Every structure is written in C-alpha cells, then in structure tokens.
C-alpha cells in the first residue's frame, strides 16, 4: 500500500530533510512528491487554516467556496447565524456541489443527480423521494457533506479536519495575546474590502510559508527598489538602518510569528524627530488600521499590557503557521495622509511546484467609508498581484523551487544560522518567545520546528 510506504518513508526521512543541530533544511524538501502528499495529510488536513472572513457571508444562506489544501470547501451561514464549513464533494458520486465562487442558497443541490444539502452540509434528500435513491444502507444523517471543525476568531474563519486535535486557542497559544492586537481590537471588528485576489505561483508552498515567519532581512535587497524611491520612508543616508522592520521585536510561538516595529522608529520615519512619551505617541500615531475615531475602542478592548506593547512596538507583519501571512502596515493614502494597509494572504498548495496565493484586504468596520476606499487602493498598490512590494516576492519563490529540481541543487540547504536568541526586554510581556534586535532567523527556524513536529507526529 502506498500509504504504508509513505508512513515508513516519513518516519525515516522527514528528519533527514531537517538538520536540527545545524539549523538547515534540505532544498530537496521543495521538490518531493511523496513529501508533498504527506504534507497534505499531516499539515493541511490537521492544522487550523484561515479560509475567509465572516463578513464575506453576512446574510443567511450566503456562501463562498475556498480551498483547504487541495480540497474545496463551502463556507456558509445558516439561519441561526452560525458559520459552517463543508467539503464541496457530493457523497453520492463526488461531484462538486457548489459550482460558483460565491452566492446565496438555502439549498445546495448537486447538478448531477440532484442530491440536496442544507447550508450546514446536512443531507435533505435525493429526487424522487419515494424511490429512496440514497438506498437503505446508510441513513440520511450519514450522507451529509463532510464537515470541518470551525472556529471564528476576530471574524476570520478558521477550519480544520482534525476534530479531536487542539482548540484554536491552544493552537495559537501565547501568540493569541498578540494576534488579538490585530484582529480583536475594536467593537465591531474587521471587514473584508471585497472578494480576494487569487493567483497561481509556480513554487512550492513552503517558500512563501517560511518567509511569512518574519523574514525581515530580505527587505533590504529584494525590496530595495521600494526603499530607493522613498516609499518606505527615511532619507538616502539613513534608509538602510532605518528601513522599516530591520530593528524590532520578533515573536514566535507554535510556529506562529509576529514582527513588532518600534513605534518611535515608525514615528520618526513619518514625522521626523519628536519627544513623545509612548502614551502620547499612541494617541498621536495609533497602530496601523486604527483611525483617530477608533482610538477609544482600541483602549477599551485592549488590556494595559497589550496597550503597552502597542505603544512601544505594535505587531505589523508576520504569519500564522502553516500558511498565513500578515501585513498590517502603515501606508500612504492617495489624499496625501499616512494611513494603512491591512492584508492577509493564504498560501494553498496545488502540487509540489505550485500554490494558490490568496490575498484579502481589510479595514476596521468603524473606519470612515472614504478611508476604506483609500486603504483598499493603498493595499493593492503595495501588496498582492501588482503590489510594488510583493511582486518581487512572487518572483523569488519560483526560483527557489526550480533550484530544487537539480540533482546537485537539491543537495544544498536553506540555512537559519543567524541567531539572535531569546532576549525579552524587562518591560515586555512574558508571552511567547521574544527576540529583540536586528531581525534574524529565529522565528523562521521556529516555523520549521513546528513543521517538523507536525510532520513527524504519530497519527
């Protein structure tokens, strides 16, 4: 059996891809069909995956179709307001039940033989009821669409096939304290600014996955053009030391990560020198996505400890293991003011050499409508398909994957040997692993350790 051989293969070989002592990962891991199949089983069928936001389906019956790994799922809202995630595969003959990306339906009826399902995935029946076309071996209760476990967090829809695994809270661990500062900070919460961008990148999903775990170092070179035209702030003589995200505080836990940029650095880039206390600065210069009218809500929803972090060094970029990338960044708006862009990506594998890169833009619901429109334009300008920052990333990942195809190339390693080490400042919360200084490989290596742990976990 192939599955058995894969299990044996896994037990022996996964550790060979990852040299824990020397902090190296074999390039071969970016081009291995068997490893890829195991990743689908052990990571994408086990992890909590972010697959959308509840504001995409505000009304009863609204649905969107998304990917969990290579599996299509339907995210739908039922009459009681709950969000359900069901496999988009008819239990009868495996036809896709939903054929459009989004819509509204009280009944999802398969176009092949007409089996019908409710938005929660439960089976209503097959046509010609008296003929009982679902047979009498299985009950109707057994013939619903396969259901994923769902948890909403800050309106984000998380789902997993691991019904007995950790809760989302356990999965996020200490990092939830920091993620709350991005996703759970206002009364009404976030909303999407439209249906996501989707594109295919000819690269292994892990190239983008590991980068999302706080690779700040690449900013200097890969995004050098954006620094050179002044779009990241700073002056010609200071740009490389003051370039955003070079010095800061990296956070890591369970493979999740966030990068906090000192607020005084961001303030200096935006406004020049100024002598403000952290509290005054938080007032004058709220974290990305918080407009002045939302500041009282931020203060109400955050604990004193969280407000301290936000005033000192708010989290702005990072990731969530295994496949989510976060950019909640300051960005110039088209009216000339400094605003922000709130961006999430999901990285969904489509074979060893391809992934689908999905990009969501957000604003706090309480943001003025005209600002939302400008935030959407700013996000589109900097990130995603045509983003002047991220178009360079999408160019890099295919090259790494290509390198793994050579018999010699694949014997090379990805190296994570620039180490800062845990060094939590005295006034920083004692939560997650904390690395202060010039961002190094610590958090990215933690991503690989989380990968290793999940890939070698006994089923």
């Amino acid at each position, binding site marked *: 059996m192939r599955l058995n051989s894969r299990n044996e293969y896994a037990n022996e070989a996964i550790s060979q891809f990852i040299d824990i002592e020397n902090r190296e990962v074999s390039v071969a891991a970016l081009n291995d069909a068997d490893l890829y199949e195991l990743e689908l089983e052990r990571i994408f069928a086990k992890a909590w995956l972010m697959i959308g936001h509840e*504001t*995409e*389906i*505000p*009304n009863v019956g*609204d649905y*969107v179709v998304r990917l969990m790994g290579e599996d299509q799922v339907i995210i739908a809202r039922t009459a009681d307001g709950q969000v359900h995630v069901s496999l988009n595969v008819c239990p009868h003959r495996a036809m896709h039940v939903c*054929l*459009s*990306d*989004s*819509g509204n339906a009280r009944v999802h009826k398969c176009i092949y033989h007409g089996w019908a399902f409710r938005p929660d995935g439960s089976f209503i029946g097959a046509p010609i009821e008296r003929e009982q076309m679902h047979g009498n071996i299985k009950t109707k209760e057994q013939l619903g669409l396969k259901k994923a476990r769902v948890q909403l967090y800050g309106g984000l829809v998380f789902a997993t096939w691991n019904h007995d695994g950790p809760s989302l809270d356990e999965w996020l661990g200490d990092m939830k304290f920091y993620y709350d500062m991005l996703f759970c900070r206002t009364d009404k919460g976030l*909303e*999407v*600014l*439209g*249906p*996501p*961008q*989707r*594109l*295919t*990148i*000819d690269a292994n999903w892990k190239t983008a996955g590991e980068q999302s775990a706080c690779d700040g170092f690449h900013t200097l*070179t*890969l995004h*050098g*053009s*954006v620094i*050179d*035209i002044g*779009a990241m702030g700073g002056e010609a003589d200071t740009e490389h030391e003051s370039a955003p995200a070079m010095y800061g505080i990296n956070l890591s836990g369970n493979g999740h990560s966030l990068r906090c940029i000192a607020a005084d650095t961001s303030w200096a880039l935006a406004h020049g020198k100024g002598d403000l206390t952290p509290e005054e600065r938080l007032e004058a210069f709220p974290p990305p996505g918080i407009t002045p009218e939302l500041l009282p809500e931020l203060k109400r929803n955050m604990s004193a400890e969280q407000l301290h972090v936000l005033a000192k060094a708010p989290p702005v970029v990072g990731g969530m293991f295994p496949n989510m990338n976060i950019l909640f960044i300051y960005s110039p708006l*088209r009216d000339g003011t400094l605003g922000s862009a709130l961006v999430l990506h999901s990285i969904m594998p489509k074979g060893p050499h391809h992934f*689908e*890169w999905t990009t969501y*833009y957000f604003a706090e619901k309480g943001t003025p409508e005209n600002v939302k429109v400008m935030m*959407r*334009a700013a996000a*589109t*300008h900097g990130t*995603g*398909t*045509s983003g*002047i920052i*991220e*178009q*360079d990333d*999408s*160019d*890099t*990942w*295919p090259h790494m994957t290509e390198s793994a195809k050579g018999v010699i190339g694949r014997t090379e390693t990805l190296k994570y040997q620039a180490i800062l080490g845990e060094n939590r400042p005295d006034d920083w919360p004692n939560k997650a692993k904390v690395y202060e200084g010039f961002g190094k490989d610590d958090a990215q290596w933690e991503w690989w350790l989380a990968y290793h742990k999940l890939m070698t976990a006994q089923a």
Partner: protein
Amino acid sequence: MSVTVATVTYTREDQRRDEVPYGSTVYNSIMGFLIREARLLDHRDIKAWGELLAEDLEYKAPVRITRRVQQFDQEFGTMGHFDDDYNSMMVRITRLITTTNAWSEDPASRVRRFISNVTVWETDVPDEYEVSSYLFLTRNRAEAKDYKQLSAERNDRLRMTKDGFKLARRSILLDQVVLGMPNFAIFL
C-alpha cells in the same frame, strides 16, 4: 450593501452614445493610439507610455468571480488587481525606470500585447470617447519554454488633447478568476 460583491459597472455602458464608424478618421486615430501604447509597453518605453496617461486617471482591474448565470451582473468584485490613480501609477513607473533593483521585471519579461475588436463610442463630452478593446497578452521570462497568457476586455475613456489622446480611465476585465501569472509587474 454587501461589501463582498458589488454590482460594479466597469463597462460604463451608460456613457456610450453613437458608435463611431469603423474606418472613420476618429476610429483610425484611436486604433493608432491603442497600437502605439502597446508598442511602447512591449518595448519597455514605460516613461513614454506614462506620458499618455491623463492626470485624472482611473486604472482598475477588478477581481473576477465565478458566478451562476443569473448573477452575471455580480461577476466583478470591489477589490482589484490594480486600483490606481495617476499618482500611484507614477510611483510604479518611477520604481521601474529609476531604480536598478525592481527585481520582478529585471531581467524583464518579454511581453507582446495584441489589441483587437475595438469599438468606439462618442460620449456627452466633446473629444472624449468610450473605447472597448480586447487584449491578448503573452509574457515570457528567463528560459521558460511556455508563455504566461492573459486575455481581457478593456473599457477605456480616451480624451483628445492638444498633445494627442490621453487615457483617462481603463477598466481591465480579466478572463481568469485565478491568475496564471505570479504578478502584474507589467501594465495591461
């Protein structure tokens, strides 16, 4: 209003008046403009192309969504792959032509833009025209033997000025829901 999918009229059919006859002087000069800008972009004369943009430019490529036939009027989202105005386009152009490290197009793709099926309408504004055209684009990079391809319908607003036609609006309606190329580091 649902923020997710809006009924967005990217084609601006409401602004179309009499159709300008195929082969007429105006039609030919607009055809010439479309060919010229494609040629400038294909030859990476991005600066000269930028001079064809009007300062009130709106340049968008909304994301496309697969919908049931009954919901064809909701095929395009409020989010786009481009969502630009004149200033933001100038930032893109400045990055591409003044820096030596805009890596997504260095080494550059080899791109050809094929423009066809051009229809021109008069509008309520003298010397302004609504123009619909088809775009077929091939993009080849490095040693790839295959091309990344793209097809789209473009709905433009062109304005005749003393310096010739300027592009005042372009809505690019892509045929792909999931793009096959990794970025739009190129203009459409």
